[in-house]
């Protein structure tokens, strides 16, 4: 059965969201239509505002509403050390630890031939330009520990080492609460290699 055009349009747009199938899109559409009008308008203006005001930081490519972003402008953040991450959400996760005092560089993805993503599709060129301009002493590779993240770290390591700076990779441990029995052999042996005295 076909809905009136405005509803159908809404369903179609919602169905483009990740993890939302046609059925969920329908459910969400009807939920939105049953909301008080004011709340639905708040949601729609929040989407428009975020989309209009948020852009990439021209230095680190994190999302920001001011360019450069708060971290890149912050006087006490150490510009000599740059942490390379895949996504803006990784910056948020790292910031929560309050342990890292350097700056970031967001690649916006990881190498994945199956998805047609090579280094040229990531902010790698921009990273090289930044290293030239800012001459940091250390690059911390903090891409994820899956196949694509590891491949990206390896690629960047080979690319950056000849530039005469220290390149480090964050340690791969076992996931918190990770069951030893559930961890694959390779992750396990890497975790063993990276063991530390306590």
């Amino acid at each position, binding site marked *: 059965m076909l809905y009136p055009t405005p509803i159908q349009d809404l369903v179609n747009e919602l169905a483009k969201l990740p993890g939302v199938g046609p059925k969920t899109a329908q459910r969400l559409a009807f939920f939105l239509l049953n909301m008080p009008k004011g709340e639905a308008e708040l949601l729609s203006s929040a989407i428009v505002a975020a989309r209009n005001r948020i852009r990439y930081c021209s230095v680190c490519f994190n999302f920001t509403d001011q360019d450069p972003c708060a971290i890149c402008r912050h006087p006490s953040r150490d510009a000599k050390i740059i942490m390379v991450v895949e996504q803006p959400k990784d910056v948020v996760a790292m910031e929560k630890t309050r342990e890292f005092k350097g700056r970031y560089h967001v690649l916006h993805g990881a190498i994945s031939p*199956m998805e047609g993503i090579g280094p040229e599709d990531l902010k790698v060129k921009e990273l090289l330009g930044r290293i030239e301009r800012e001459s940091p002493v250390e690059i911390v590779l903090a891409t994820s520990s899956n196949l694509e993240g*590891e491949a990206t770290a390896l*690629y960047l390591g080979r690319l950056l080492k000849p530039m005469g700076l220290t390149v480090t990779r964050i340690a791969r441990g076992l996931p918190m609460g990770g069951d030893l029995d559930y961890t694959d052999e*390779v992750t396990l042996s890497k975790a063993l290699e990276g063991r530390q005295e306590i």
Partner: protein
Amino acid sequence: MLLRSVDIRQFRNIAQAHLDCSSQLTLVVGKNAQGKTNALDAIHIALQGKSFRNSPELEWFSFVDPDVIAITASLDNGQGRLSSIEHRVMANPHKRIHRGPKIPVVVFSPQDLALSKGSPSDRRRFLDQTISLMNARYDRALKQFQHAVLQRNRALKEPRLSHIVDSFNPALVSYGTYVWQTRQEFVLTLLSQANVSYRRISNGESLGGHLQYGGCQSPIASEAEYLTVLEQRRTDERLRMMTLVGPHRDDLALDIGGRSVSLYASQGQHRLVSLSLKLATFHLLQEEFGEPPVILLDDVLSELDSDRRGELLRMISQKDQQTIVTDTEARNYEYLSPMIYHVDNGSFTKWGQDHA
């Protein structure tokens, strides 16, 4: 462990079925293409979380409303403690849930009897499925390895990405070496057990063999060695645009009295070799878990002569053995007083314990 019953909803041509499996033998009788194998596959999915036919999940759905497949199995730990397994697949949005333990199971199907005659990939799948039953870690490492091969092959095929091929080498090599070591160890145990079975059913001939390492002249013992061989094939790989060295190209090479099975075996010998490999699997699982695995016999008796039938029937008559069989007729099994279901166009009718 006793499998008490299985409930199937909306799986392939089965709208709804309840199978009481608590007898030593459950027999599903019906003409071809009525849903016998579907029932066995559903039981396999309940016990192992996956299809033994390796069929794509899309084919599982034949009921649109509701588009949910539900297979549940009820278990008894042998002392009357009940538990259950639930497997649900939702089409839209796609979701698959498996709740409950995995129960060891061995399938004997006509395809299994073609194992020795089939392609190297059939034999790799056989090895992988059997090892996975005993070692959950293997399954995960194998999936990582296969993922690395896919990424690498894609990069080899696209000139724009060929400079990142090597970035996947460490993953390929570390997971690949683990897969090789585990397969190698398993093949040694498997073949010594298969040789025992083969001697018995073939009037004393001996069955041998080894794991043929994919793209290698000889076995690979370490990650470093794997990397060396990989680098030797570098130009070749770029020319043929695929990963040429690794467990994804392995084969299980078999021989009878030193003569290669794939080159010289007769039709009959192929069958016996395949049967021996499956019988060996059964014995290894029984040893590993301390009780016999559930047996699923999919229409195989008609494929065997009376001697080998006897071998299978002896196995399923063992004490504590639980078996579910499909056949077009019931007469071979009557002496085991099976629970009989008749299947017609996806619907199952119980015949009663003593009715045949």
